[in-house]
């Protein structure tokens, strides 16, 4: 039975950056491997779960990814960073498994796996005056509120943050991955482009759609609460 206890050496490995861990891993350092697994394993599972609905299959995808990382590490040339290279392997596998799963499941009415190209506008068209309005074509008919009047405790309440997580969970899988890596994990757009093998423009479109939908969900929720408070 292998030990998964944190030894002093392993704790030390946790302090190293990815590049040093990569070096150590190439020397066959087990602690370096476990430090990488600790650093990225949970995030990998979250990403895999965005593409694949069956939890055990998502776990399998993560396992396979680590094996592929070990197999490929000798050929890894460092043209991308270690993390974006690993997540590219992961996304590819998860996407393939997700597509296969969607074909096999009899009830594949999976809204989250919907076509990303037939997305609607950032804001519903009926919030704006029509394009042939004589004075203000395309201007707000129902203007957005000033959120600076919403108390901070409300914005960061457990309920609000839970609503945001739910809204992210309803996005198409690629949009979920982009908003998770960019806005939750704080990756740069270059890193996300590498990890998803998409162009900068494509990445920005995915991010725009994701953020716009989460904003709309928040607005809906905060406006409802405001009406409730007035009534």
């Amino acid at each position, binding site marked *: 039975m292998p030990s998964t206890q944190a030894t002093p050496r392993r704790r030390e490995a946790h302090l190293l950056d990815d590049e040093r861990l990569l070096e150590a891993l190439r020397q066959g350092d087990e602690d370096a491997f476990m430090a990488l697994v600790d650093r990225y394993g949970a995030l990998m599972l979250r990403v895999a779960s965005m593409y694949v609905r069956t939890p055990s299959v998502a776990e399998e995808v993560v396992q396979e990814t680590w094996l592929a990382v070990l197999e490929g590490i000798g050929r890894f040339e460092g043209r991308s960073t270690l993390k974006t290279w690993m997540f590219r392997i992961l996304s590819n596998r998860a996407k393939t498994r997700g597509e296969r799963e969607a074909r096999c499941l009899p009830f594949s009415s999976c809204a989250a796996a919907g076509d990303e190209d037939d997305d609607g506008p950032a804001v519903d068209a009926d919030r704006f005056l029509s394009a042939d309005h004589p004075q203000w074509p395309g201007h707000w008919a129902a*203007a957005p509120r000033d959120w600076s009047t919403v108390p901070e405790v409300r914005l960061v309440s457990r309920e609000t943050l839970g609503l945001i997580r739910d809204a992210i969970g309803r996005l198409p899988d690629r949009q979920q991955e982009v908003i998770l890596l960019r806005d939750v994990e704080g990756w740069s757009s270059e890193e996300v482009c590498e990890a998803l093998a998409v162009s900068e423009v494509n990445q920005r479109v995915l991010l725009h759609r994701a953020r716009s939908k989460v904003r709309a969900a928040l607005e809906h929720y905060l406006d409802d609460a405001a009406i409730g408070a007035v009534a």
Partner: protein
Amino acid sequence: MSADDLACQELVELVTSYLEGRLPRGERRRFERHLGECEPCVHYVEQMRETIRLVGRSATGDPERVPGIDRLLDAFRDWNREQPA
């Protein structure tokens, strides 16, 4: 409103490019000129910034478990044994 003016409905589609610093200079000027005259759009851009901030705080912070860690360790040891010394 002149032909060069941006409609609010157009602005909401440019906001991510604006925040990412990816609007060409002329477009950015149109965008900012519009903001200078349109309070609802100022609120909209602020809502997007708030959304980004709150998404950043939405991670549960629960310690997440890495599945099958023992199996991974076994796989690593197998791999390591097969490596040329």
